[in-house]
């Protein structure tokens, strides 16, 4: 096999290069030729094709995502915004948190266990590369219908992959979602979130300044994992591509990643790292171009020095390999010995593969010949940008037409039907496979509305602090299908509310935007609307987007998934001992409903379960009411007024009451505030929460609500062994529990 060097490229200017096979368009290829003033070598083409893929360059989404910056609310908490590996937020007392959510959808369909596992691995490395210690993970999952056959293959594998990888890393899993809908059958969504903790003054960035500094590749050796994955797997439809040319699956080694975490933290502590970058989708191509582009502008790499697992790999393949558990660091020559010693202590292989230069060029050699010579910024930052056409889907108006659905008489049966339904039944089959206790800082985890962690880390230089952080992720594809603008806002509102019900103040947002093909103008419209909605709502709620991820091409043939923006919100609680536990925590507490209920069933769980119907409009977005509700919840928590809480979402008040009873097996007897019991119990109006308070604190809570214009209804008291709704229903908790817990085990064993 002849080596395609720069010299050879100059000698054979007209040689046909396989750009199309690598997912590159003719005009993109022409641009590469323009940039280089010649045809690219095979290795250069490898770099440009992965770096300019949808997955790495955000070429279809960029023009829309800019709104997250232009509309961003002023926030003193934001230390690092979008564009870095992950955003960083000031959480007080000298501490900062960094968090991000990312998709690994397509690989999880091909090989559920490894696909999901490496999804966790990837997001954890993003967090590490900011200089943080990863402290928890979350997973937001979407599968096909519970009764569809392939779900039995995909879900257990995905859960096992997340469980094995996350548990092995010693990261508590503190929350997430599991949603079933036939629209995801060929395109399951696996979105993984990681949060990390660091001292505010110890943020690391992906940059390679200082000519003469060494470029170190450390972690696992490079093999033929997912070659072509970045461009072929992540940016073309699966059906045609993956069947024909199934790329090697990436296999994760969580043990190596655990060693990498500890190794990196010790490297940071020893202060021997100038710049650092994780190796993600585009492997060495991405790490070298991005580090070089953000540094002094040049880098010289000898690709022969990359340690290989498979010695037959060609340079093009090394550049595109997605082997997991690798990082790249820039280190001064003086610190190299100390750097290597720490790697050795942790059994992490490390190799100097090059040097930072001031040439303005990224050059790479193989067997002594120059095979790459490019301006790194052109690959990293100057990828193509598309203004993809979009328009409202042809059927949108019909979809939004209100259809009157027959309402039930037997509300007891309806509650049990919902409680045992695929989406509202207990997630325990999944969550019991995740370690939620490791590291000893988990204050709240499933089934709480948000995960809450204490921030007292055995990290060096840690002052004791009473602070904690709360995190929740939410998304509702049905709402977004009916109205992507409102759907994205409702996802944000729910995550924001879930954080607030624990007593934490929402601070910042991450998001994972899961959509069909951007080449379909109707999908592109959904995307544009969702981004616009989310950016507007973030502005109104005062919480900036710090980062996220876009996953396109989640479609099989012409059928796209429901547009599914998943939103993660991070909040802070000053005194974590004041966090509000989930549900009813004792007998003889007043049960109080906060917020108003309207007749809103478009996209509801009830319409889905009882009628298999999706139509009309989603619940009205009421951001001012959300903000007022959050103020009430966090203030009441601070003052110690609340004994327990739970937000209202899918399935409405009835499901929230049942879940609150199930939390500790404490019943309640309530009456309904409105005229229509069905609406009171099952409507999914936003901006509502259920709380319980000691009787003598009710007046103070009511006053706080009045001051913030949050409607407040005393519904009844906790106690007993049943949930009783006056004149409507009485269900023993044992029955609720049985119904709630039977569903997933019945399918998955």
């Amino acid at each position: 096999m002849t080596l395609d060097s720069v010299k050879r490229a100059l000698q054979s200017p007209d040689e046909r290069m396989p750009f199309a096979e690598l997912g590159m368009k003719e005009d993109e290829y022409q641009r590469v030729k323009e940039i280089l003033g010649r045809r690219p070598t095979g290795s250069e083409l490898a770099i440009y094709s992965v770096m300019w893929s949808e997955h790495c360059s955000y070429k279809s989404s960029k023009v829309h995502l800019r709104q997250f910056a232009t509309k961003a609310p002023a926030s003193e908490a934001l230390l690092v915004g979008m564009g870095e590996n992950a955003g960083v937020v000031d959480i007080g007392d000298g501490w900062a948190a960094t968090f991000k959510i990312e998709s690994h959808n397509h690989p999880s369909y091909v090989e559920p266990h490894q696909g999901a596992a490496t999804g966790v691995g990837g997001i954890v490395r993003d967090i590490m590369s900011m200089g943080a210690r990863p402290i928890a993970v979350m997973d937001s999952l979407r599968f096909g219908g519970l009764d569809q056959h392939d779900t039995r293959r995909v879900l257990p594998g995905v859960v096992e992959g997340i469980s094995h990888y996350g548990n092995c890393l010693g990261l508590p899993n503190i929350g997430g979602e599991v949603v079933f809908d036939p629209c995801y059958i060929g395109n399951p969504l696996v979105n993984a979130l990681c949060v990390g903790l660091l001292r505010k003054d110890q943020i690391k960035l992906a940059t390679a300044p200082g000519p003469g500094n060494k470029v170190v590749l450390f972690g696992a050796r490079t093999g033929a994992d997912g070659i072509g994955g970045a461009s072929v797997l992540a940016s073309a439809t699966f059906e045609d591509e993956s069947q024909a040319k199934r790329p090697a699956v990436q296999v994760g080694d969580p043990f190596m990643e655990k060693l990498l975490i500890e190794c990196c933290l010790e490297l940071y502590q020893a202060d021997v790292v100038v710049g650092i970058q994780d190796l993600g989708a585009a492997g060495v191509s991405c790490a070298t171009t991005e580090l070089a582009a953000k540094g002094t502008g040049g880098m010289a790499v000898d690709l022969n020095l990359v340690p290989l697992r498979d010695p037959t790999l060609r340079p093009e393949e090394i550049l595109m390999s997605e082997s997991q558990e690798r990082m790249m660091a820039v280190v001064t020559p003086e610190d190299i010995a100390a750097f290597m010693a720490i790697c050795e202590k942790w059994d992490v292989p490390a190799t100097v593969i090059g040097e930072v230069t001031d040439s303005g060029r990224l050059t790479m050699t193989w067997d002594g010949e120059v095979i790459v010579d490019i301006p790194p910024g052109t690959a990293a930052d100057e990828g193509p940008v598309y203004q993809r056409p979009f328009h409202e889907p042809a059927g949108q108006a019909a979809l939004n037409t209100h259809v009157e659905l027959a309402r039930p008489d037997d509300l007891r049966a309806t509650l049990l039907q919902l409680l045992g339904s695929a989406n509202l039944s207990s997630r325990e089959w999944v969550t019991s496979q995740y370690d939620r206790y490791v590291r000893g800082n988990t204050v709240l985890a499933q089934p709480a509305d948000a995960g809450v962690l204490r921030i007292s880390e055995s990290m060096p230089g840690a002052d004791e602090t009473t602070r904690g952080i709360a995190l929740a992720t939410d998304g509702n594809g049905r709402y977004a299908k009916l109205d992507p603008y409102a759907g994205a806002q409702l996802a944000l509102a729910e995550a924001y509310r879930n954080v607030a019900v624990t007593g934490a103040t929402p601070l910042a947002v991450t998001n994972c935007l899961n959509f069909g093909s951007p080449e379909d103008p109707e999908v592109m419209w959904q995307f544009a609307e969702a981004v616009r909605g989310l950016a507007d709502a973030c502005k109104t709620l005062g919480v900036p987007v710090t980062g996220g991820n876009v996953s396109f091409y989640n479609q099989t043939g012409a059928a796209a998934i429901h547009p599914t923006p998943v939103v993660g919100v991070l909040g802070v609680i000053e005194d974590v001992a004041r966090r509000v536990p989930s549900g009813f925590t004792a007998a003889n507490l007043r049960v109080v409903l906060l917020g108003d209920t309207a007749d809103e069933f478009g996209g509801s769980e009830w319409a889905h379960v009882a009628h298999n119907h999706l139509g009309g409009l989603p619940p009205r977005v009421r951001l001012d009411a959300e903000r007022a509700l959050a103020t009430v919840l966090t203030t009441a928590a601070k003052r110690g007024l609340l004994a327990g809480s739970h937000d209202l979402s899918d399935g409405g008040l009835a499901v929230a009451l049942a879940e609150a009873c199930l939390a500790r097996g404490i019943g309640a007897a309530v009456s309904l505030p409105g005229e229509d019991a069905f609406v009171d119990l099952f409507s999914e109006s936003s901006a509502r929460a259920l709380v319980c308070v000691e009787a003598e604190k009710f007046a103070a809570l009511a006053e706080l609500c009045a001051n913030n214009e949050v409607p407040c209804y005393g519904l009844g008291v906790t106690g007993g062994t049943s949930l009783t709704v006056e004149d409507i229903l009485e269900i023993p908790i044992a029955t609720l529990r049985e119904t709630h817990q039977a569903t997933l085990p019945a399918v998955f064993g």
Partner: protein
Amino acid sequence: MARVIVDVMLKPEILDPQGQAIARALPRLGFSSVADVRQGKRFELELPGPATEETLAEARKIAETLLANTVIEDFHLHIEEDA
């Protein structure tokens, strides 16, 4: 009674972290002569009656659909006599 053995190994290009962990541990235990280790699975299927073409075909089908994940693994099967 026939016993069909199905050996399942990761494809050569797929990372085998288990095998590597073992290989790294060996020199520490004083075993220096092993160049590489790969770990896979071994299944023993007991079939009633003698091993015929059909039972073998069925075993192959089982290996393909259930025992091996052919996305990342290769398998190989043979009959064990003594059972």
